[in-house]
């Protein structure tokens, strides 16, 4: 098990700086998720750790070894691509064993390792198939198998689930979490989906515009977001965020309150408003209010809450769950 250290890592494509100085310490065995909106540089950062992109400036160490200028294959990493990147002309077994065959390992050893990986991922009956005869989830598992046989110090995942449908995604989330629990290897996982980040991570790194917004455990980010960006990004449904006069009256530049931290009442409360729309999700319902002094506000209520469109309600924040930002 090895940790990963990034020291003031920067990346420019031509004159355009994409990664603007990243300092990060990933502990051995940690499941770290890079999360952020599309285009913020998550993939670029991951590809720099993999060695697929040159580092413009800064230093990168894996397991205490400076690997800034090393080839990807010498860094002790394995990567799972969003597209899976399986070799189309090779069978599943050849795909998984390709790295070993390049390293000229004996055939018996390759077979043993491929079979062990296939066994762990329930791929044994598919070993002779070509990738095009596999389903999305199976391809995903082959890609993971190819990573496992490299016996890496660090696993890298770049949005590995974004090509799968919702139910398969939930299942693969679990499988990757299981894999981490079993191997206890350091894993770095890139996603734009905050649900994946919340459910899988030991540590979330929120990126925005090529910089780190905040680093912390999922619940730390949920409870104590450092910036309005993190507050809006982590948690679903999104936190209600307000600026201007409303925030000033609350004593800050930006005021935030999560939908689940708002109580609704028909008789009294802090903010009067009217119900514009209701989404009943089963266990709970999302109530979209037009609050007179603030504007739109979403509140989470229980599924059968007796509210109707056009109804006049009072919303109140639960004490201790309000967020005040000075930016």
């Amino acid at each position, binding site marked *: 098990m090895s940790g990963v250290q990034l020291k003031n890592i920067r990346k420019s494509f031509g004159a355009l700086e994409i990664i603007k100085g990243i300092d990060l310490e990933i502990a051995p065995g940690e499941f770290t998720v890079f999360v952020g909106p599309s285009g913020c540089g998550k993939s670029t950062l991951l590809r720099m750790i*993999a*060695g*697929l992109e040159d580092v413009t400036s800064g230093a990168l160490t894996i397991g205490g070894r400076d690997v800034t200028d090393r*080839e*990807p*294959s010498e860094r002790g*990493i*394995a*990567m799972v*691509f969003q*597209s899976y*990147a*399986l*070799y*189309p*002309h090779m069978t599943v077994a050849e795909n998984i064993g*390709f*790295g070993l065959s*390049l*390293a000229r390992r004996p055939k018996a050893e390759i077979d043993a390792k491929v079979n062990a990986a296939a066994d762990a991922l329930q791929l044994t009956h598919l070993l002779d198939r070509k990738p*095009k005869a596999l389903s999305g989830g199976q391809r995903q598992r082959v890609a993971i198998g*190819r990573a496992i046989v*490299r016996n890496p110090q660090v696993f890298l995942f770049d949005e590995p689930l974004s090509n799968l449908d919702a139910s398969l995604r939930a299942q693969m989330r679990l499988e990757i979490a299981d894999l981490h629990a079993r191997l206890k290897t350091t894993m770095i996982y890139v996603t734009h989906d905050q649900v994946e980040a919340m459910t899988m991570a030991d540590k979330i790194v929120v990126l925005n515009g090529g910089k780190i917004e905040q680093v912390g455990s999922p619940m730390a980010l949920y409870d104590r977001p450092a910036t309005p960006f993190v507050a809006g990004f982590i948690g679903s449904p999104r936190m209600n965020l307000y600026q201007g006069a409303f925030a000033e009256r609350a004593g800050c530049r930006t005021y935030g309150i999560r939908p689940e931290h708002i109580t609704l009442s028909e008789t009294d409360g802090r903010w009067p408003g009217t119900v514009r729309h209701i989404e009943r999700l089963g266990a709970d319902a999302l109530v979209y209010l037009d609050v007179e002094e603030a504007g739109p506000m979403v509140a989470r209520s229980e599924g059968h809450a007796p509210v109707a469109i056009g109804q006049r309600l009072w919303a109140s924040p639960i004490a201790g769950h309000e967020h005040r930002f000075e930016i």
Partner: protein
Amino acid sequence: MTRTRRATTGIIALALAGIIFVIPFVFIGLQAGKSRTEAAMLAFSLPKAWLFWDNFVAVVTARDYQLLLAFFNSSLITVLSVAALVVLSAMVGYVMQRRPSAVTGLAQIFLLVGLMMPPAVVPTIGLLQSIGLFKTMTGMILIQIAYNLSFSTMLYRAFIATIPRDLDEAARIDGAKPRQIFFRVILPLLKPVTVTNIVVQSIAIFNDFTGPLYYLPGRDNVTVQLTLYNFQSAYATQYNLLFMNILLVTIPPLIVFIFFNRQIVAGMTAGAVKG
């Protein structure tokens, strides 16, 4: 109603295409079976007496079995130059597609020039003479490679653009050196376009008339297309033998084409990596 009309248009189109493509072949076949005087009239009619076999023997044995030598020469030129073309242009196409730089930009300009500018025959002959390759098979093979390299490279480059770069990167992480990435990952995926390329180039080179005419004169160097001159002269053209010769020369490329027809189309249209 509309369906019958559509069928009718289809049949008419097929009939037209059939006439345009098949009639010349029938004509060649008929002429090849006639006697010398009858063929000289160039009429579209059945031969009075079928002399197919006699004409065949006459053509094959003409000038001390020159046709067989020509087949050997043409095949040698075709096989060697196509083999070199495939290997060279696949590699060049790969580098040009994957590593754009000032050098590949310049190479791109040369490729375009190679496609667009007609080759200048006299200076080429001068060059071949000065390096001692005029009238040699080696020289002819090099000429064929040079003439067709542009098209072939462009074909490969366009095809390689459809192969996701992720594959190169995955192989790199797996520990493949650039050479291994090309030979073990990329090259196997080029099979459809390589079949297309081999067929198209083979037929073009095998059928090339002017190339050997300019750069490969000499009795021992004869290629199939040049054997057609054997029966054609200013005073007496033996049309029956000429057409028999045409028939014999046309058949090998035709067989190749019919055989690989489907792969050619597949290679032209398909991307490398299917769903």
